[in-house]
C-alpha cells in the first residue's frame, strides 16, 4: 500500500491534522493544531475526538480508499465531530470507547456513501455524515445502560484544572469575565460550539486561528453571524435560541462556506450569503421543533441543508453565471479563491479551448464584425468579413471594376485550427463587381469541424480554388483555398464564422480568436480572446523561433543558473508535470513552484507557490506573459493574482476587504526591447517591469531583463530599488 513506514506515518499525521482543519474548510496545519488544543479543553472529549479521527482514517487506509482524500482529512472530520460530540455527552469508559470505535466506522461508511451519492452531482457532503452518526448513537444509547451521561459540563473547571493546572483555570475565568458586548460573547461561544465547547476562551482562540487561516473566512463568519443576530431581533425570534444552545454556529459555517470556500468571494457572494441567512434561521427554527419530538438536537442540519441547496441551485443557471462564481478548483483558501479567480477570469476566463487563429496571412481589415449592419444579423450575427486595404485606405488598385483589382482577391485562405473538412461548395462563378448571386448566398465555401459543436465556415471563395476535399484532415495554417467573389458578394471579401453545425450557413456561435495582433498606425497591440471589431486591422502573431524555443519548457528538463550573489552554489530548476498535465518549474533546493501554460504562441505563468525572494519568484514575475513573437515597442500588460504580493502586512488588510474593493495593484508590463536575432537564433532581449502598489502609489517596483538565445533563457537580470541580481545560465 505504501512504500515504507515513513510514508504511512506521514499519511496518518497529515490525515489527522487535516481532519481537524477540515471542520473549518481548511488545510492549514497551524490552525489544525489550534483546533486540537481547543478540543482538549475537555480532556475526555479531546481524546474521544482524536480517537475517532484515528479510527476512521486507519479504517480508510485499511479499506484501501484514495490516499489523497484520506490525507486531505475528508474521511476524518465527520468522525471527529461525532467523537467530540459523544465525548462531551457520555462518561468515558470501556463501553464508551467500544461504541466510539463502531460509530466512527459507521460515520466513515456514511461519508463514503454520501460521497458517492451526492458527490456525483458535484456537491459536498459537508457534515451530514456527522449528523447521521451522532443521531444514531444518541437514539441507540438510550437503550444502553452501560453508557452514562457525562456531568462534566457542570464541573468544567475540574477539566480545566486537569489540563492546565490553576493557571489555566485563571486564564479561563479571566476570559469568561471579559466585558465584551453580548452579541460578541455569543459569537465567540457559538464559534467554540462548533467543537462542542461553550466558552469564550475557546472561542477567542478559535477566532485567532481562523484569522490566521483566512481573513476572509473570519470576516464572513462575523458578517453571517451578526446578520442572523439582527434578523432574530427584527423578526422578534427568541434570541436565547442563539444564546442558550449556541446553535448560532450554523450561521458561521454557512457564511464561511458560501462567503469564500465554495463561492469566490465578491460583493455578490456576500449579498447572497446575507440573503440566505434568514433561510438558515427559518430552517433552524422549524427543524428544531421537529427534532425536539425525538429529543434530538439539529446540530448543523440547517447549515447543511441551505448550503447544499444553494450550491445545487447554482448548477442550473444558464445566464449571469459570472455574478456568482462557484469555485471550480478547490484551493482550500478563500483568499486564493478571491485573488486567483479574479486574475484567472481576466487572463484566461474566456480563452477558447481550441486555439483559433485568423484564417489568412498578413494584415486584413474587418469590414463587417459581429452584429454587422449589412448581413451579420440574427442567426448569423457572430461572423466577420475581412478585406485587404492599402496604405491609402483603398481595397483595390486600378479602376476597381474587375475582381483582380482587389487586393484580397486570390489571396490564400488558411484553416483557423486543426480539423476535418466538412461540407464544401466549389465551382460557383466569381461575380462581376457589383453583382451578387442570391441563389447561392454563401458562394464557394468550406466548413471545417474542429470539435463537437464547433465548426468554422469560410465563404465567397474563388471559383475552383479549393485545395481540400470533404473528410480531409487539415492543420492550422494550411491553405484551404483562395479568397474570391462568389455568392452574395458584390466585391471580393472573405466571410468567416464559427458555427455549431456542419451545414453551410448554420447558426453562428460566439467564439473568439485565441490571440491576434491589431495595428493602429505604427502601434501594435496584442489581444488575447479577441472578437475583432469593425475597421480593426488584424493579423496573426508571427512567431519568433528563438523565443519559442527558449520558453519551450519540457517536463523532465533541468535548468541551472548561477547568480552574481552566490558564486559557490548554483540554482537548479526542474520542469515537471502533475497527473492533470499541469506543468510547473520547481526549484530543487527550496521547493518553490511556478505553474506555467504554453499555448503555442504565448507563454503564461499561471500560479506561484513559494517564497518571495527566490530566483524562481523573479522569473515568475518577469515572464508572467510572453507572446512568443517580436514586435518592437509593443507593450504587453497583465495583472498578477494578489497572493504573490510581497508586502504581507498590506496583503492582510486587503484580505479583509477583497470582496468589496481591490486597492492593491500588482501590474505587469513587458516590452520587446532588442532583437539581435536575424536568422540563426541570436539574442532577443525582453524588458519587463512589475509594479506592486496601493492604488496609484508604488510600493515596490521590479525591473527585469530577460535574454533569450540559441540555448534558451540565457540570462535574467532582476533589479529592485538599488539591488541588482544577475543570474546566468549554466550548461
Amino acid at each position, binding site marked *: 500500500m505504501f512504500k515504507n513506514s515513513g510514508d504511512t506515518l506521514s499519511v496518518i499525521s497529515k490525515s489527522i491534522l487535516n481532519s481537524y482543519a477540515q471542520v473549518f474548510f481548511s488545510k492549514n496545519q497551524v490552525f489544525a493544531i489550534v483546533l486540537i488544543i481547543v478540543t482538549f479543553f475537555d480532556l475526555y472529549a479531546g481524546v474521544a475526538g482524536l480517537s475517532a479521527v484515528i479510527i476512521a482514517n486507519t479504517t480508510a487506509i485499511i479499506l484501501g480508499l484514495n490516499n489523497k482524500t484520506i490525507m486531505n482529512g475528508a474521511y476524518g472530520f465527520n468522525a471527529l465531530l461525532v467523537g467530540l460530540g459523544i465525548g462531551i455527552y457520555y462518561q468515558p469508559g470501556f463501553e464508551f470507547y467500544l461504541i466510539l470505535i463502531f460509530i466512527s466506522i459507521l460515520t466513515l461508511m456514511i461519508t463514503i456513501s454520501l460521497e458517492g451519492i451526492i458527490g456525483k452531482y458535484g456537491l459536498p457532503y459537508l457534515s451530514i455524515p456527522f449528523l447521521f452518526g451522532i443521531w444514531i448513537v444518541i437514539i441507540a444509547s438510550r437503550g444502553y445502560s452501560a453508557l452514562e451521561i457525562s456531568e462534566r459540563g457542570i464541573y468544567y473547571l475540574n477539566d480545566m484544572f486537569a489540563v492546565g493546572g490553576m493557571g489555566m483555570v485563571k486564564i479561563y475565568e479571566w476570559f469568561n469575565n471579559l466585558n465584551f458586548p453580548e452579541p460578541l460573547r455569543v459569537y465567540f461561544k457559538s464559534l467554540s460550539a462548533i467543537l462542542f465547547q461553550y466558552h469564550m476562551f475557546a472561542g477567542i482562540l478559535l477566532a485567532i486561528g481562523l484569522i490566521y487561516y483566512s481573513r476572509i473566512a473570519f470576516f464572513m463568519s462575523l458578517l453571517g453571524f451578526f446578520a442572523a443576530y439582527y434578523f432574530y431581533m427584527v423578526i422578534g425570534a427568541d434570541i436565547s435560541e442563539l444564546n442558550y444552545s449556541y446553535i448560532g454556529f450554523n450561521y458561521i459555517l454557512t457564511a464561511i462556506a458560501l462567503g469564500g470556500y465554495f463561492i469566490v468571494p465578491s460583493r455578490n457572494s456576500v449579498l447572497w450569503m446575507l440573503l440566505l441567512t434568514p433561510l438558515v434561521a427559518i430552517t433552524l427554527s422549524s427543524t428544531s421543533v421537529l427534532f425536539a419530538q425525538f429529543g434530538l438536537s439539529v446540530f448543523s442540519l440547517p447549515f447543511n441543508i441551505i448550503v447544499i441547496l444553494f450550491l445545487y441551485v447554482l448548477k442550473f443557471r444558464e445566464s449571469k453565471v459570472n455574478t456568482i462564481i462557484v469555485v471550480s478548483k478547490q484551493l482550500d483558501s478563500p483568499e486564493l479563491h478571491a485573488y486567483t479567480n479574479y486574475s484567472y477570469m481576466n487572463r484566461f476566463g474566456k480563452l477558447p479551448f481550441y486555439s483559433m487563429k485568423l484564417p489568412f496571412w498578413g494584415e486584413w481589415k474587418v469590414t463587417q464584425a459581429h452584429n454587422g449592419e449589412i448581413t451579420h444579423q440574427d442567426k448569423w450575427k457572430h461572423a466577420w468579413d475581412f478585406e485587404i486595404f492599402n496604405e491609402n485606405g483603398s481595397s483595390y*488598385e486600378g479602376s476597381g471594376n474587375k475582381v483582380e483589382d482587389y487586393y484580397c482577391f486570390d489571396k490564400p485562405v488558411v484553416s483557423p485550427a486543426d480539423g476535418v473538412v466538412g461540407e464544401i461548395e466549389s465551382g460557383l462563378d466569381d461575380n462581376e463587381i457589383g453583382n451578387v448571386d442570391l441563389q447561392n448566398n454563401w458562394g464557394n465555401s468550406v466548413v471545417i469541424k474542429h470539435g463537437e459543436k464547433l465548426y468554422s465556415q469560410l465563404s465567397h471563395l474563388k471559383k475552383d480554388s479549393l485545395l481540400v476535399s470533404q473528410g480531409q484532415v487539415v492543420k492550422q495554417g494550411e491553405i484551404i483555398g483562395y479568397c474570391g467573389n462568389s455568392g452574395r458578394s458584390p466585391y471580393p471579401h472573405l466571410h468567416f464564422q464559427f458555427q455549431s453545425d456542419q451545414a453551410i450557413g448554420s447558426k453562428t456561435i460566439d467564439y473568439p480568436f485565441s490571440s491576434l495582433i491589431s495595428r493602429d498606425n505604427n502601434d501594435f497591440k496584442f489581444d488575447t480572446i479577441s472578437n475583432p471589431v469593425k475597421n480593426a486591422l488584424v493579423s496573426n502573431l508571427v512567431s519568433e523561433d528563438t523565443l519559442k524555443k527558449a520558453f519551450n519548457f519540457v517536463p523532465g528538463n533541468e535548468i541551472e543558473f548561477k547568480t552574481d550573489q552566490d558564486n559557490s552554489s548554483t540554482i537548479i530548476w526542474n520542469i515537471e508535470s502533475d497527473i492533470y498535465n499541469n506543468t510547473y518549474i520547481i526549484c530543487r533546493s527550496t521547493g518553490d513552484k511556478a505553474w506555467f501554460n504554453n499555448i503555442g504562441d504565448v507563454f503564461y505563468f499561471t500560479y506561484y507557490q513559494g517564497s518571495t525572494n527566490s530566483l524562481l519568484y523573479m522569473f515568475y514575475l518577469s515572464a508572467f506573459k510572453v507572446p512568443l513573437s517580436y514586435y518592437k515597442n509593443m507593450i504587453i500588460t497583465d495583472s498578477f493574482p494578489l497572493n504573490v504580493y510581497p508586502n504581507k502586512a498590506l496583503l492582510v488588510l486587503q484580505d479583509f476587504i477583497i470582496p468589496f474593493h481591490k486597492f492593491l495593484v500588482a501590474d505587469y508590463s513587458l516590452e520587446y526591447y532588442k532583437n539581435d536575432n536575424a536568422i*540563426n537564433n541570436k539574442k532577443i532581449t525582453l524588458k519587463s517591469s512589475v509594479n506592486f502598489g496601493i492604488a496609484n502609489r508604488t510600493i515596490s517596483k521590479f525591473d527585469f531583463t530577460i535574454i533569450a538565445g540559441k540555448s534558451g533563457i540565457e540570462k535574467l537580470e532582476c533589479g529592485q530599488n538599488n539591488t541588482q541580481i544577475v543570474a546566468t545560465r549554466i550548461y
Partner: protein
Amino acid sequence: MDKQRYERPLIKKLESNMPNKFGTRTEYLPKTHIDDVAVTELADKYGSPLFVLSEKTLRSNIRNAKKAFETRYPKVQFAWSYKTNYNDAVCRVLHQEGSWAEVVSGFEYDKALNNGVEGSKILFNGPDKTDDDLKKAITNESIIHIDHLDEFYAIKEIAGNLNKDVNVAIRVNMDTGVYPMWDRFGFNFENGQAWDVLNRIMRSDIMTLVGLHTHIGTFMLSPNAYAVAAGKLAELAIGIKEKFDHEVSYIDMGGGFASNNTLKGAYLPGTDISPSINDFAEAITSALISSNFEHDKLPLLILETGRALVDDAGYLIGSVLSNKRLSDGRRSTILDVGVNILFTSFWYDHKITPAQPFTQYTEDTVLYGPLCMNIDIIRDHISLPLLNKGDKVVIHNVGAYNMTQWMQFITLRPKIVLIDIEGNTHIIREDEKLQNLLDVEKVPDHLKDFEL
C-alpha cells in the same frame, strides 16, 4: 489674372499616325507639385538641378510591397538593397519600416553599420569581399552570401582563425528561361556547382548554412522567371533537408523587379508592361507554397527589392538652358541635367514633364544635358510642349541608382531634398562644393607654383 504665357510659333508637318479623335497630343499633365510642394518653389529654394525624394511614396511603396507578400506567405523579410540608393535618410526610412540591409561591398557594409543596423541583419552579397570585410562580417555575425569558391576558402580560413561560427548562404544562378542568363554570380544550379559548394559547407564545422540566395537579373519583366527560380531554390532546400537533415532558415529571392520606367527600345511604356509587385509576389509565393515544403515549415522569404521601392519616389528637377534648331530641322533643348547625374538615362526613356502649364502643341525634341560631351543626351526623342529658357522640367522615376551611380564630372553634384510625410522639406545631401574636391586632392610640392 496672370500674364499669359508666351509660346513661340510652331510650324509642324502633318503626322500620318493612326487617327485619334483628340489628335496627337501629349497624354500627361504638367507636374507642378511634388507631394503638394511647388516645383518652382523647390528650385528657387534649393537650386537647379535638384533631386527630390518623397518619403510618403517611399513608405507607401514598402508597405504595399510588404502587404503583397505578407498576405500571400506566412513569413517575409525585406532587406534594403544599399546600392540602389544608399543615402542615409533613404536607408533609414526603410529601416524604420523594418527592412534589413543588403550590401555588396565593405563600404556599403560600413554604411549600414553606421546607420545602426545590427551586424546580424546585414546580408553581405557580391563578388568583392576583401579579407578585412569578411573578418568584420564574421565578427559582427552578419550573414555572408558566398559568391565563389575562393570566397568559401577565405571564409573558412578567416573564421577558423577567429574561431567563430559563421552563418552563410550561397548565391545560386540558374536558367529561368530569360535572356541573358546571369551566371557570373554565385554557383550554377544546373551543372552541379551549387551542390558542390553545399556539400563543402555542410561538412564544415565552422559554417552554418542558413539560406539560399538567388538574383536572376535586373529590371525583370517576367514574373514567371521568379516562379522558376523559387521552385529551383525550394528543390535545393528540400534536397539539403533530405541529404543532411538540415533545414535552411530562409530563401532569398534577391531583387530585380521592374519599376515603371520605360526601357530604351521597348515598344510600350513601362507603366503598361512592367508587372506590379503583386504579380511578382504571386509568382514567388505560389511557387514556394506549392513546392514540397510542409505547410508549417515554410522558410522565411527574403526580398532584396530596391528599384521597385524607390524609383518612383525620386524626381529630378531641371531647368531649360536654351532651345536650338539642329541641322536636320529637329528641335533640341538643352537642360541643366546631364548624364553625369542622370546615369539611368543611358537605358531608360525617362518620363519628363514640364513644371508649368502648357498648351496642347508639342514638338519632337532632343533633350541634351549641359556637358560639353557628345554623349550627353537625356532623351533623343521626346514630344514636349514648347519650352522657354528658365522653364522647369521634372524627370520622373529617378530614385533608383542615380544617387549612387552619379559622378562628379564637369559640374558638381546637386542637392538632394526629402519631402517628409507632413510636406516639410529637408536637405538630405548638400550640393558638392569645390572645397570637397580640394580636400581630397593633393598637389606635390614641386607643382605648387607656376607662372604663366
